[in-house]
């Protein structure tokens, strides 16, 4: 579905209010725009808290379809604060997933009849050859810290204990290495 420039210019709250005001006759363009905009935020929340691509994708579907249904039904008290509403829904759903009180399949089944307004944009993958080259260009210490950190999402203090250096030292090396990596990949300033 092509994006309307008018909708793109609306902020999240105005977009949510527009969906809420249409009621029983859904504004599919507005819904698609809101979904496209919020999906990356929900997916990142899911990845951060669930550390699982499929679980994060399920969270996006569950939370956003439920949000759209509630907006249409006028059950979101303050559409202007739609971002907070979605964050709250993410927190509740992840808690339920973790507690195992509702299985993921059951969560999805709840909204299986709701039409998905658009595909959530996928996370753009980095050029693997370029990234390998950028990693090789780091110093030995920087590469070790980056790899130990991001291979299994480990905190500075854990990495520090494995390399027999301080957590503060790991943070400094990590900061410098990420700056270099981002510059090498063309996405940011190198950190001195």
């Amino acid at each position, binding site marked *: 579905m092509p994006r309307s420039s008018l909708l793109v210019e609306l902020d999240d709250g105005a977009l949510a209010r527009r969906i809420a005001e249409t009621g029983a006759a859904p504004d599919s363009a507005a819904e698609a725009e809101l979904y496209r905009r919020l999906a990356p935020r929900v997916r990142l929340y899911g990845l*951060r808290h669930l550390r699982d691509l499929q679980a994060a994708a399920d969270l996006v579907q569950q939370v956003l379809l439920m949000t759209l249904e509630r907006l249409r039904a006028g059950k979101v008290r303050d559409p202007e604060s739609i971002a907070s509403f979605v964050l709250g829904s993410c927190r509740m759903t992840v808690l339920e997933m973790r507690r195992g009180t509702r299985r993921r399949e059951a969560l999805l089944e709840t909204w299986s009849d709701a039409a998905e307004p658009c595909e959530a944009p996928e996370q*753009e993958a980095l050029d693997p050859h370029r990234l*390998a080259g950028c990693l090789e260009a780091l110093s030995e*210490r920087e590469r070790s810290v980056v*790899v*130990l950190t991001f*291979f299994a999402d480990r905190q500075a203090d854990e990495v520090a204990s494995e390399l027999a250096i301080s957590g503060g030292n790991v943070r400094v090396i990590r900061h410098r290495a990420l700056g270099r990596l981002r510059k090498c990949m063309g996405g940011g300033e190198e950190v001195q």
Partner: protein
Amino acid sequence: MTCRSPVALDALVAYWLGELPQEREAALEEHLFGCTQCTGQLEELAALATGVRATVLDGKVSMVVSEPFVDAMKDAGLSVREYQVEPGGSVNCTIGTNDDGVISRIRAPLAGVQRLDVVRMLGASGPEERLTDVPFDADSGGLVIVPSAAWLKAMPAFTMRMRLIAVNDAGEKQLAEYTFNHSPS
């Protein structure tokens, strides 16, 4: 829309790794959910983390790691071939077509070492390559080196000599030498 108070990269990294106190994490999430620009920064960081993981899984990077990292590689389902070499020793090594990686445990007397460099030379007269200031844990009694599996698989038979050099304010001292005799599988 431009963010009036963009979140610093360090804070995003700390958030991603779960290093922030609960209250600060909650406040940062409130900001992220209302901010396309900062979400974009976090997406970039997440893509980098995913890319680093994929690069390691594909064996496209060489690195000095820790024993817990070797466990993490195995937990991730990687098939790793492991070698250990003592000071002055040599080892015949290879990488199989089904191997995802090779681990070389280089035993060395590291007590009291301030900085450690690794010098390696391919073949009998190849140019020397010096890796400066490699990370190490003196108490572990050695280094764990993971060469790029993709590179190893592409290599014909070769001999690599490796020297560990301790560096301090007074100068440098060779700790030990090792020989790796690689043959393709």
